[in-house]
């Protein structure tokens, strides 16, 4: 009986730890995967670590993270230490009350801290704007900036704010342990208070300061939520970068960077714990403690007669710190800049470097999650982008609302290379605001090994024979578009009866259990791993799935007989963009044939550049030494006759948008 219990409890503990560590273990294992799937093992490789260090977006966010963490830690450590000392000069009642107050920010939900800091900064900026305008008006000597935005400084302030309590929390116990007479004794022996601080208080509370600083640093490196709300649109920490990388699809690059982040935080925590355990042991054995060689050395080192040595070490450390900070800030110094916001995994990042090398303009490349997310970000006024890459229907909406700036086509000579098919489109009928970036089609992706017959109609999405194996795209516009096309209606219809009819088609299939679930990003893993048979999705994404499919999976793509939706994503410049000239240079560079070829090869979406479309098969052959499968190329860049059958989205009137929303909520799934 007893033995049985023990086995049971061990099993339970084992399960608990398995549950805790298995996900991290898998993450680490797949960071060494040769393929670019995080579901299918294709052999060991370090490629992802290599590409990680070549990924400039990740390295840039790593710089930002290190810089903000180092600065925040340094400032918070000084501020927190003096705050703790101040607390200890108060009466015990006041001090205890303040220590409780100090605990609250640590216990507080990060989201609340983040949102409140964000609102606070925004409110301050508004007040500042009014003040600066008034101040600039009454005098002409100093020109104050009137428009402040969230950015590195606000994030740094936020980090300092949430780091300070951790420092106080760690320093306070050391102060409590310290004999208060020590300070009196030092002053009695001739020290001023400040001398007493350096000579007596600091050495006594140093362990607390060091662990406070370590924990603050860990918290800063690790923080996502608070940074997310205070960094604004043009600064990204590593955690924010990882988050945006997972929006599209999780490549093992994410695993690799997460593994490194996990390891560095682990090392910091272990180092801190080891230090604390050593100190406790030392305290316990103090009476009979025979100092080890290292301790003898450190004891000797702390004696005043070794002051020169300590000064030398402190000086060297200060120099290193300053150099590191200078190097890190150097990466974000005041050279010309263009702020670009695009989608995740939507550019060959070598292009960014090439552009920077060629022009000396630094590209601050950020990503948004969806057209809708980008729209709300722009509306909130929290973004200071120059160039954005929205989709067709969103472009019409932005133009309608006057949020875009007209382009100076005389400075974009490469615009002439855009194929005529992609000009004069409904979203920008007079070609005043946009330069197309990519285009593509919606279609059916299916696993030939899981369907009875190969589909050539949207009806496959609603067929009971595929019950449980169909993935419904989690985007009301696309999902209803498929149904509308199948029923012979326009994807842009505003007729409520037609829309309800299309909805009923989907709802009926749902009742019959056809759908496995609503998916967006998970579509990659599900289809690649053979966990679902059919999904409506984009051609470019199909091509990258093809590269990662598991052994027994045979993915294929078809544009159904009834026709489909096609889309264009185009570069636009926001109204009042601060870097308009740089934006023109960037757009022209990206519109070039070379850039389009590189992008096509990297993201598998078709280019609107006439030359690039013609040259791509040859480009491919030269690059990979084999011929490009013409069928695949047709999927990427569909021939004109198929494109004929496809219809582009236009912006829907608000009533129809509301109908879409309510139907989508009603559907559930």
């Amino acid at each position, binding site marked *: 009986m007893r033995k049985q219990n023990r086995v049971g409890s061990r099993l339970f503990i084992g399960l608990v730890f398995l549950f805790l560590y298995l996900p991290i273990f898998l993450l680490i294992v797949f960071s060494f995967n040769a393929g670019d799937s995080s579901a299918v093992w294709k052999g060991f490789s370090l490629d992802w670590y290599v590409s990680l260090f070549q990924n400039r977006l990740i390295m840039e966010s790593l710089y930002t993270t290190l810089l903000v963490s180092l600065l925040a830690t340094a400032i918070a450590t000084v501020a927190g230490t003096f705050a703790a000392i101040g607390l200890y000069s108060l009466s015990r009642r006041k001090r205890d009350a303040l220590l409780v107050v100090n605990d609250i920010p640590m216990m507080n939900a990060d989201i609340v801290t983040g949102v409140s800091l964000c609102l606070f900064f925004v409110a301050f900026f508004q007040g500042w704007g009014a003040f600066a305008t008034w101040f600039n008006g009454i005098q002409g000597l100093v020109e104050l900036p009137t428009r402040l935005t969230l950015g590195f400084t606000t994030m740094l302030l936020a980090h300092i704010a949430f780091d300070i309590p951790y420092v106080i929390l760690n320093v306070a116990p050391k102060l409590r342990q310290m004999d208060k007479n020590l300070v*009196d004794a030092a002053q009695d022996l*001739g020290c001023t208070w400040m001398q007493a601080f350096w000579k007596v208080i600091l050495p*006594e509370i140093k362990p607390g300061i060091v662990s406070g600083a370590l924990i603050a640093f860990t918290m800063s490196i690790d923080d996502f939520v608070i940074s997310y709300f205070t960094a604004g649109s043009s600064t990204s920490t590593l955690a924010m970068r990882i988050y945006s990388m997972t929006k599209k699809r999780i490549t093992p690059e994410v695993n690799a960077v997460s593994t490194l982040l996990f390891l560095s935080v682990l090392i910091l925590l272990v180092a801190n714990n080891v230090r604390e355990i050593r100190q406790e042991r030392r305290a316990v054995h103090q009476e009979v403690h025979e100092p080890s060689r290292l301790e003898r050395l450190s*004891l000797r080192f702390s*004696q005043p*007669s070794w002051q020169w040595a300590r000064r030398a070490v402190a000086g060297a450390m200060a120099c290193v710190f300053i150099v590191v900070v200078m190097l890190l800030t150097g990466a974000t110094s005041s050279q010309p800049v263009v702020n670009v916001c695009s989608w995740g995994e939507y550019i060959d990042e070598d292009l960014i470097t090439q552009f920077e090398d060629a022009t000396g303009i630094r590209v601050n490349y950020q990503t948004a999650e969806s057209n809708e997310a980008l729209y709300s970000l722009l509306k909130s006024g929290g973004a200071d982008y120059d160039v954005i890459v929205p989709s067709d229907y969103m472009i019409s909406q932005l133009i309608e609302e006057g949020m875009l700036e007209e382009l100076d086509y005389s400075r974009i000579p490469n615009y002439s290379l855009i194929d005529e098919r992609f000009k004069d489109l409904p979203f920008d009928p007079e070609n005043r605001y946009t330069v197309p970036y990519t285009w593509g089609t919606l279609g059916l992706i299916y696993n030939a090994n899981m369907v009875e017959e190969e589909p050539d109609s949207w009806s496959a999405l609603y067929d009971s024979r595929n019950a449980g194996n169909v993935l419904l795209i989690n985007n009301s516009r696309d999902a209803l578009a498929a149904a509308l096309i199948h029923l012979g209606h326009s994807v842009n219809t505003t007729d409520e009866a037609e829309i309800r009819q299309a909805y009923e088609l989907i709802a009926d299939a749902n009742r019959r259990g056809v759908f496995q679930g609503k998916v967006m990003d998970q579509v990659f893993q599900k289809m690649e791993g053979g966990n679902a048979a059919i999904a409506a999705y984009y051609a470019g994404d199909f091509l990258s799935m093809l590269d990662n499919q598991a052994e027994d999976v045979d993915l294929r793509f078809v544009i159904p007989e009834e026709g489909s939706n096609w889309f264009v994503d185009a570069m636009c410049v926001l109204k009042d963009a601060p870097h308009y000239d740089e934006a023109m240079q960037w757009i022209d560079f990206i519109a070039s044939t070379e850039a389009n070829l590189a992008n096509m090869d990297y993201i598998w979406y078709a280019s609107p550049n006439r030359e690039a479309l013609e040259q791509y098969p040859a480009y491919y052959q030269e690059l990979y030494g084999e011929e490009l499968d013409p069928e695949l190329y047709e999927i990427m860049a569909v021939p004109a006759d198929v494109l004929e059958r496809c219809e582009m989205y236009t912006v829907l009137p608000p009533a129809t948008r509301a109908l879409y929303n309510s139907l989508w909520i009603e559907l559930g799934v």
Partner: protein
Amino acid sequence: MSKELIRLSDCVMSYGNELVLDHIDLYINDKEFLTLLGPSGCGKTTTLRIIGGFLSPTAGDVLFDGVRINDVPPHQRAVNTVFQRYALFPHLNVFENVAFGLRIPKADESGRKVKLPEQEIHARVMEMLEVVNLKGFEKRPVSALSGGQQQRVAIARALVNRPKVLLLDEPLGALDMRLRKDMQNELKRIQQEMEITFIYVTHDQEEALAMSDTVVVMDGGRIQQIGTPEDIYNEPKNAFVADFIGESNIIDGVMRADGVVEIFNRRFQCLDKGFGKDEPVDVVIRPEDVDIVDEAAGQLRGTVTSVTFKGVHYDTIVDFYGFKWLIQTTDFCPVDSRIGIKIDPDGIHVMKKSHYSGMFGDYSSYSEEYEELDAAEPEDGEVDGSREDGHEE
């Protein structure tokens, strides 16, 4: 004696409504060993901290060599302190603890900050370690020293700066009995060798009597009596001093004439004069000044209620008409036996009535009083100095 060095003139210390020092007047001579003696909370540590410069009096002046120093910070006073629990710097070894004060650059005559040469520091520290018998310990971390050794380091650390005055705040409180006796002698020797003023704070009356040139007895923020140890013991000014210094039976009496005092309706010969006729007084009779005689031959007669063997003598409690006396005698008298006592005129000391009258000197609850005394030997002394949070672990 010699010339006056420090004077506290009408010093008041109060925190809000709480009066910690109630108009203190006190002067301290050069090369004097002066002890501030009193129970916890009497204001002795506050007085010391005012002299050290850690507190500034609410009212009144502190003079040093005739110069007002109320606002001079501690690091500019020619005074050093030995703290209650030594307050050694744990991160420094013995040598560096002692050298601490010497390493602080001091302003010379022209006001420039000057550092002592390393050689001089070394010589002075070693010399001082020799004075406190700690030669050979200089490389040890202070945490590896015994209590007595730490005490010596604390003394050396203060004295190496050659202060004019050394302040000692219950320096022996944390030591055990034997060590304390040794250190008392040691301190006295050092004081005489160095020829400087010691101001010593303690609640231990034996310590005060053994070491001091002058004892200042304090209670309730007031000085109760200033005098030599002999004065304080033999001529206490009031019931508090009589009770606090040694053991005393304090009995209500009436002064019938010069040299005649009436206790329990019996007249006794005494040496005290100058009281008003029929003035009510407190009469102090030290337990060792009472002779036990046959019941019939006694000036007073009573019943033994308790006997405790103390080695040199017996503590014998005797009930006289409901008032219990402590008598220290080498004669053994069994419990419940009837005895008589005789008191010589010089064994009787008459004091004026004060607000302490009636509070002390009755041994009805004798055993409890002993427990109280044990309990009143706290390591953490008093809390008047740093008020809110003097001491915590």
